[in-house]
């Protein structure tokens, strides 16, 4: 693969990551997933930068990526604190809860119907039993045997 096609391929992969992240950012409603999607966009940018740096034999692309990494870490710290606080006051990770401030006399966006949850998608996580009580081994085994 010559340099220019290497560059082109990397830029293409970067664009795919950016576009996917962008679509996810728009339509996912879970705030943490939104943030992950934003990070994915940054991954796309990083790939492009590194590819250009390689192409020009220049350090700038990699350095820029390091800084993107750093800033992403800063933003992640703030995002975690913020999301935690938002979750504590609304009980949800849904971004659509936060639409109180809007133009006056506009009706809020309300979900008309909620999706049914298919049984097949239902997942179970291990449950910790309260301390001091002996767990019912057989029941747990039965419940998780399929997956363990």
């Amino acid at each position, binding site marked *: 693969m010559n340099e220019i096609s290497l560059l082109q391929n990397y830029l293409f992969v970067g664009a795919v990551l950016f576009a996917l992240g962008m679509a996810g*950012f728009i339509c996912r409603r879970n705030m943490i997933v939104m943030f992950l999607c934003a990070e994915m966009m940054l991954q796309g940018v990083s790939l*492009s930068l590194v590819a250009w740096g390689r192409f020009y034999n220049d350090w*700038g692309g990699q350095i820029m990526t390091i800084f993107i990494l750093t800033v992403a870490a800063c*933003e992640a710290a*703030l995002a975690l604190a913020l999301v935690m606080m938002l979750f504590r*006051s609304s009980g949800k990770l849904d971004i659509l809860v936060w639409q109180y401030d809007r133009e006056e006399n506009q009706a809020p966006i309300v979900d008309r119907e909620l999706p049914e949850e298919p049984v097949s998608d239902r997942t179970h996580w291990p449950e910790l039993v309260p301390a001091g009580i002996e767990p019912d081994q057989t029941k747990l085994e039965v419940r998780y045997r399929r997956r363990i």
Partner: protein
Amino acid sequence: MSVESLDYLLPEVLLILIATAIYVAGAFVAARALWGWIAAAALVVAGALVWRGGELVGTPGPLAVDALTQYVRGLAIVVGLLLLLLSARSAAAGQVSEQVGSLLLAITGLMLAAGANDLVLLFVSLELISIPTYVLLYLGGRGQKSQEAAAKYFFLSVLSSAVLLYGFSFLYGLGGSTSLTVIRQAIATGGSTALVSGLGPVAAVLIFAGLAYKIAAVPFHFYAPDVYQGTSHANAALLSVLPKAAGLIVLVRLLGLSMPGQHVTAWRVAMVLAALTMTLGNVLALWQTNVRRLLAYSSIAHSGYMLMGVAAGLAVLPAAQNAESDGYFGMLFYLTVYMLATAGTFAVFEYLGRRDEPLERVDELAGVARSQPVVGIALAAFMFSLAGIPPLAGFAGKLWLFYGALSVAGAPGDRSVKTWFALLAVLGVLNAAVAAAYYLRLIGVSWFGASTERPRADGGRAPWAAALVCAVLVIAIGVYPFPLMRRASLAVQGARAAASEPAPAAPTAPALSAASSSSTAIEPKSKSPSGPAG
């Protein structure tokens, strides 16, 4: 980096050190006023240092040492002092140090962003404005409103900075270096190559879209009304001033000065956004009853006017014009005037509110100007200035913006371009007429409204002083704008001149990298088709 550049950066270094010290010491000493005074002293000293720097002209390293940088640094310090006065009261108890420190850092971010001549430095400087702003937004208010404001600003800001970075990556790809000087030279000499003509517009649009969020230009403006409404007056003032200034200056630096020959895309985008932004901001402001929401739309509309200046600056080649008909000059002058009037307005509102119950609705202003004549006159001055009514500063600002647009329309050139700019100027004047309605409504309510009996106006002396300073400046600049004009035109001329002189063949070789490269065996140049190395 060298000792000289450190010397040049002394104001920023000082501010960062003081901010850090305030952060750390704030954990131990909970003195409300102390941190404010220290921060103010730091800003004053930094201002003196900037002043002492004068009109330095240095070689372009990571920093563009030119008159534009100096101008914006001075502006940032003045605005910083005003914002500090404005937020003196709104700080939550026990978190003054966090607030003051974040504010100082955001101001430093603007100072650095104005002078950054390197994509990496530019990126971190812009983040240095954004990240403290998130913190301030959350700390500024109480309960769900400020939470919502912070969340909205944060998430959309993350999206926009990703877009901006994507634009940066293409700009980097055009120039092969993070230095804007090198990028400019590469684009100037390689204007006809497929790379520049194919990817240049993409880079320009992505960067524009990323920065338009900071400027609050339509359709990237949506956060502004909601966030302003949900946060405190001080934070709204900060949002309407710092990111906007940074966005506009960076826009000029990146698209205007670093991408020669790529202006067609940029000015078209700027023109479309300017027309949309000013119109939408004004027509929606007519409906508002919440003061901060109203000012949010007003600030959106003013972004539109300033984008008109940017468009005019982008559309004309630098050689064909004098400094004052340059759209950037109009934009810079208007930016200054707008910042003063808007910060002053928020100061008035902050002052007029009750303790723990800030001013919210326009009706609450009823009759306050009669019981508080000084503040009333100041508010009237800001409103008249924002509406562009002479002889206040906003009039001169609008005048130079329209002059810039009409200079494009009057200069020799493509006929359709001229027509578009003439139409844009007409739209601008029409918008100014529409805008008068809601500014006048605020004056009318505050002077002629039936007054409410409830006690008001215990915002303290600090916002009062900020309002007074802004009012004096707005009137003085209106009556005698020449000194400010001269500075602004020198700034624009300086930036244009710095951007048109030939770049050094290679970026200034830093000492450390020279040392490290000496230890590297120079391998034969071969573009190996292999994948991973090492």
